């Protein structure tokens, strides 16, 4: 049955049905037709900047060569992605982008996982007609985690749009004009956003690469496996990438109902412990190296002996709130199998009770996924420093706010600056059209003694504003406020003298 606002169109002779408001680019992607695109990104939307997504509209309006990301699909439209005019324009755009792009893929860390490489090859651009000098830039030091190679930039604006609009930080953006625009910071320095690592995933070329894993492997060398981030309880989806049994880096894995396309820097960069040499890599039984199967057999034997000797009531199975859900479920299964007398997840009765109480309040009706939060129209944050406890929840709240939601902060265990930032958000969302934006250095009227905030004029202020005594600012990415007094523990950069990382002991 046809939904009332379902649009039917034809792309390359394939009938496509999409909801109203879908762009032709998205409609094409929905039936696995790939139209090249750089500036469009599912989470950031359209920008119309790169002009590489050209298609030709054969029937419908407007006709002719159009940018598919900017073009809403309409009923009865007939679109060709293979029309010679559209193909020629796309090829021309690639030629322009390659005028200044270095021709050195073999020594670029992005090679093999580079959208520009793919679309350049796919578009058939092979012959260089521009014989002038290339534009070159000076790179910046952006901290220990992200390498900056501006010569590789194709000016798709994804990074600036993610960093400022999506993630609400202001220390990185676009500067300059014409073909000398620069994506960076005012000066060298670590990126301040706790979501900065997403620049690595989102940049379609090799401008931002994961410094902790550079030049260790090509994409096809990795052992990749779908996984879930272990660093907080949100369960953001990740893809750990390993080679030779060593975890090299973590990539965000798309899950629309949880983390969407992104993860926080803690999830991405705080995984050094995985590779710690002290971790047992060989199963032992009675201090004798054995195979895993042999070890399991030995374990079963000992358990059976124990049960026979002492009875099941004296066996306790211990899980942990720090363990994955799957692990904890397996612990419960094991208890059933063995008939163990005790199953425990907490070392503290009070904590167990509080957790149970909290869990009992959750019903299928009132539990909200991160996707729900992103679309919420009202958010109340109770007694919680979101950025420290569940960073991606803070990012989700920001998306709600960008969509017009009101945000309230309740409680005293909230960094003052966070509350301040949120308050400004709420005020501004009430009158988005107010011509009296707080100017630079504006002071909230009711707090003349408040620290001066500096909301980026015209763009939403950061949520919760970093800085102050307990935010993330000043700490290094990947570390919550409780770890403040301790150094962050990244995976060491190869060859650097940083000691091997350990897990944060604070939560």
């Amino acid at each position, binding site marked *: 049955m046809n939904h009332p606002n379902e649009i039917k169109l034809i792309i390359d002779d394939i009938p496509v049905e999409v909801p109203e408001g879908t762009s032709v680019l998205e409609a094409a992607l929905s039936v696995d037709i790939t139209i090249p695109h750089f500036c469009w990104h599912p989470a950031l939307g359209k920008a119309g900047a790169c002009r590489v997504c050209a298609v030709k509209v054969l029937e419908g309006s407007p006709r002719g060569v159009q940018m598919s990301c900017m073009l809403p699909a309409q009923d009865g439209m007939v679109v060709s992605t293979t029309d010679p005019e559209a193909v020629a324009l796309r090829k021309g755009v690639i030629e322009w982008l390659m005028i*200044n792009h270095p021709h050195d893929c073999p020594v670029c860390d992005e090679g093999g996982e580079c959208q520009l490489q793919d679309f350049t090859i796919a578009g058939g651009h092979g012959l260089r007609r521009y014989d002038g000098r290339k534009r070159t830039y000076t790179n910046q030091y952006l901290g220990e985690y992200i390498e900056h190679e501006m010569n590789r930039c194709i000016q798709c604006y994804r990074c600036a749009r993610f960093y400022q609009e999506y993630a609400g930080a202001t220390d990185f953006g676009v500067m300059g004009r*014409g073909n000398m*625009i620069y994506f960076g910071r005012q000066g060298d320095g670590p990126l301040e956003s706790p979501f900065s690592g997403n620049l690595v995933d989102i940049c379609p070329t090799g401008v931002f690469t994961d410094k902790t894993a550079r030049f260790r492997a090509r994409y096809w060398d990795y052992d990749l496996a779908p996984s879930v981030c272990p660093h907080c309880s949100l369960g953001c989806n990740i893809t750990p990438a390993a080679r030779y049994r060593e975890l090299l880096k973590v990539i965000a894995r798309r899950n629309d109902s949880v983390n969407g396309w992104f993860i926080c820097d803690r999830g991405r960069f705080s995984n050094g412990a995985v590779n710690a040499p002290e971790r047992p890599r060989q199963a032992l039984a009675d201090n004798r190296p054995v195979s895993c199967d042999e070890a399991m057999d030995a374990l079963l034997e000992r358990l059976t002996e124990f049960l026979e000797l002492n009875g099941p009531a004296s066996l306790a199975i211990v899980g942990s709130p720090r363990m994955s859900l799957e692990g904890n479920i397996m612990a419960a299964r094991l208890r059933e199998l063995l008939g163990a007398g005790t199953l425990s997840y907490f070392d503290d009765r009070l904590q167990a009770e509080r957790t149970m109480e909290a869990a009992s309040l959750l019903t299928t009706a009132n539990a909200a996924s991160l996707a729900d939060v992103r679309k919420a129209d009202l958010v109340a944050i109770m007694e919680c420093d979101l950025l420290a406890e569940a960073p991606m929840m803070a990012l989700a709240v920001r998306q709600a706010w960008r969509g017009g939601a009101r945000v309230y902060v309740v409680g005293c265990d909230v960094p003052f600056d966070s509350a301040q930032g949120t308050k400004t958000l709420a005020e501004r969302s009430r009158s988005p059209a107010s011509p009296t*934006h707080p100017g630079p250095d504006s002071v909230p009227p009711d707090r003349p003694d408040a620290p001066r905030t500096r909301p980026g004029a015209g763009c939403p202020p950061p949520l919760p504003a970093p800085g102050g005594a307990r935010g993330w600012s000043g700490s290094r990415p990947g570390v919550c406020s409780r770890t403040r007094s301790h150094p962050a523990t990244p995976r060491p950069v190869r060859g650097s003298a940083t000691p091997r990382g350990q897990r944060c002991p604070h939560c």
Partner: protein
Amino acid sequence: MEPILLRYERAGHCPTLDEYRADGGFEALATALAGMSPDAVQQAVIDSGLRGRGGAGFPTGRKWSFVPRNLPGPRYLICNADEMEPGTYKDRVLLEQNPWPLIEGMALACYALGVGHAFIFIRRGYERAAANLRRVMAEARRAGFLGENILGSGFNLELDVHQSAGRYICGEETALINALEGVRANPRAKPPFPAVKGLWGQPTVVNNVETLANIPAIIARGPAWWKALAATPEAAGSKLFCVSGHVANPECFELPLGITLGEIIDGPCGGMRPGSGFKACIPGGASTPFLTADHWGVAMDFDPVAKAGSRLGTGGIIVFDQNTCMVGVTLNLIRFFARESCGWCTPCREGLPFVRHILEKIENGSGNAGDVDILREHVHYLNYAFCALAPGAMGPLEGLLRLFEDEVREHITKGKCPFTRL
């Protein structure tokens, strides 16, 4: 034709409020506020046939009619005084010599559109014009023509001057709106057009200085009278032509719209400089294709100039004599556009420097025949840029390839520029 906008002849003198009023100044506003509905003011502007003087020539009354009347929240009017198009300086002349009709015209436009807060966005370098504007606005406010309850009618208008940080792209209306909001001056996607969703998301009309300055005369003397100022029945009103280049008397003149190119050059411009013969001109600012001696009789009005393969644009005429290298002229203009590209979209940001590189090669004598094809491709593909800057930049290049291809090829075959540089 008796000048309307430039009727105070003493150069360097800006009339006082009393002088302006002695001449009938602010009578249009008084008439409108006392006895005309906002719709009647808009209708008069529609009837006058006034077309935008900012370059595109869009009918002003039609633009106003796109503003939705029933949306909640404020509407805005912005006067575009950015004027950074090379060859165009008419708005500066107006702002320095007679800004009164602009103030009155803005008040009338705001009354017609139901606007309570309007802005004048002025080019960075126009310090003198901005100072003059501020002085005149203060005078108008003291006399009750701006501010609250204007002329006792209950109509309120706040007017602010905003000095641009200074880039050509700030003149593009949506980039201008971004600049006014305090963010990067990149253009916005259209639709939605500013008339529906502009400044701070509210309906906004952007009009050029000269466009708005014409409105008092339309209201005071009637749309039919104003329309008949033009030289042809199809054209409407008078137009400021600001001339530069190899003419004897390069100045800004107010002339009937539809006057021929030859009449402008031989008339008020006093013909060519001694020793100079007319080779070509840019008719309406740097983004319009050349006209040649073949176009001597073309009526300088929007449609006839378009039919002749160019655009009336802003009316900024740049005249070149027989010793001018047209490749050099085009290169000079392309250098400007490449520098002023905002950097948002690929065709403009990367295409213009490519064109600049090739024109430099040709001008320096190292071009080859294939380069002409690359230039032609750019003329075509830069139409797919995000805003009108890049297609505009291709105006002179398109003219060069259509009218002066021989001259381009001569550069290539001779391996040098055939003109002696002065």
